[in-house]
């Protein structure tokens, strides 16, 4: 199964995070790549560099900033190929952003039948 893993930055959680014995991002990457679990992924520029686009009554509206008003923002993503959700959860739990941020796992929409 393919999962999109959003890497979410959360300033409130980051302020409260206790130091833990976690992997560095390079160690995490080395682990998932060696097991063939990561298809691709990247960091994203902060929301101050975001642009939102939509059509309203035939007019194109371009606005500065992200589509949601939230302290949390998507700082990066990884596309994972896992046997099941438990495997994806275990990979997410080892990501350095699990401490001080959060990870959201979304299965790809697949039409099987």
């Amino acid at each position, binding site marked *: *199964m393919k*999962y999109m893993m959003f890497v979410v930055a959360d300033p409130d959680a980051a302020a409260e995070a206790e130091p833990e014995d976690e992997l560095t991002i390079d160690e995490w990457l080395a682990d998932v790549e060696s097991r063939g679990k990561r298809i691709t992924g990247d960091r994203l520029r902060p929301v101050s560099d975001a642009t939102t686009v939509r059509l309203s009554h035939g007019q194109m509206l371009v606005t500065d900033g992200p589509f949601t008003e939230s302290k949390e923002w998507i700082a990066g993503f990884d596309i994972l190929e*896992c*046997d*099941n*959700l*438990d495997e*994806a*959860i275990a990979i997410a739990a080892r990501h350095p952003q699990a401490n001080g941020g959060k990870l959201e*796992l979304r*299965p790809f929409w697949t039409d*099987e*039948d």
Partner: protein
Amino acid sequence: MTTDADRATAEAITSVVAAERTSLVASLIRLTGDWDLAEDCVQDAIERALVHWPQEGMPRSPAAWLTTAGRNRALDVLRRRQTERAKLQQRAIMDEMGRDSAEQAGLPDDRLRLIFTCCHPALPLEGQVALTLKTVAGLSTAEIARAFLVSEPTMSQRLLRTKQKISNAGIPYRVPPAELLAERTAGVLAVVYLIFNEGYGQQEDYLAAEALRLARLQVDLMPTEDEARGLLALIAFQMARRSARFDARGELVPMEEQDRSRWDAVLIEEGNWHLRRAASSGRSPGPYRLQAHIAACHATAAAAEATAWGTIVTLYDALLAAQPSPVIALNRAIAIGFRDGYAAGLAALDALDPKALAGYYLLPAARADFLRRLGRSDEARGAYRAAFELAPAGQPEQRLLQRRLDEL
């Protein structure tokens, strides 16, 4: 004409169906991955049994008869679907039919896979509860809807969304591996305890009875899990008191005024037996075992005055250390009042953090109770009124507070 033989057959069918339904559903889900198909085919097999068995007599192995009927039904339905997936599902069922029972031995019980999947932490809690009641306990959607005070279509939607998430999110149908087992077991026990608490205290308490059955099933399936025994004992002790908790008019009877001869001695012995088995594990007790030991102190006291309050306070201390909670702290303070005297109890209540218990009627109710016993009637009346305002409106708990006020 209904004969004794007919009645015996009907009873035998009911008990076989109750014993086999969950296993059958669980194994068909494993083979096909299709929850609705599994439930429909098992239902169909049960209906066939109800027609055939009274006419033809009970088969030699009713469980095998039901299994075959359920699988054949599934094969019929899948043949009509003609998709690639349906072909794989048919093959899985036929392979299973060709396997002998020696090959099956040693594999995890399918019911355990079912329970762990229903209670996967990625599912919403209300979905975990509903799906456990539907597929493990075998309740109808209408019964579950009634218990949670929602409409049947709403509950139907909830069950559908939960099953869809299992399939869409890739939740595996399995008993979790060792590194996840402790955490996931705690989740499974929590769902059963939640079902119990939802049902217990209601006069129509079929959910609590279901929780007792589920707790027994979990002990059967996980005999070395001493917290599962703790939860079963806790539920058994509380269920033992259920018929004494309400009087003939449906009014709540406080524990110390209950007729202890009406407590169910068989359930109390069941609880004690599981606590002894759990203690023989040598592990230090977890939260369910500690709560069960507290319930045992009440259940085994010959009279209210003979309750081992000293032991109860010690158990609450351990419970607070394992699982800090304002409600446990409140119960500990009440126990201190019965161990050391009502004035000490009042002091213990006043030492609690009122913010943590804001809006909780049992804090002013406990104060009122100690004040009444101390003969401080004016203060007691004020506290009873405060408790009355916060208590669930129109419920037996609130009517008990009104009775106390009237008595003062």
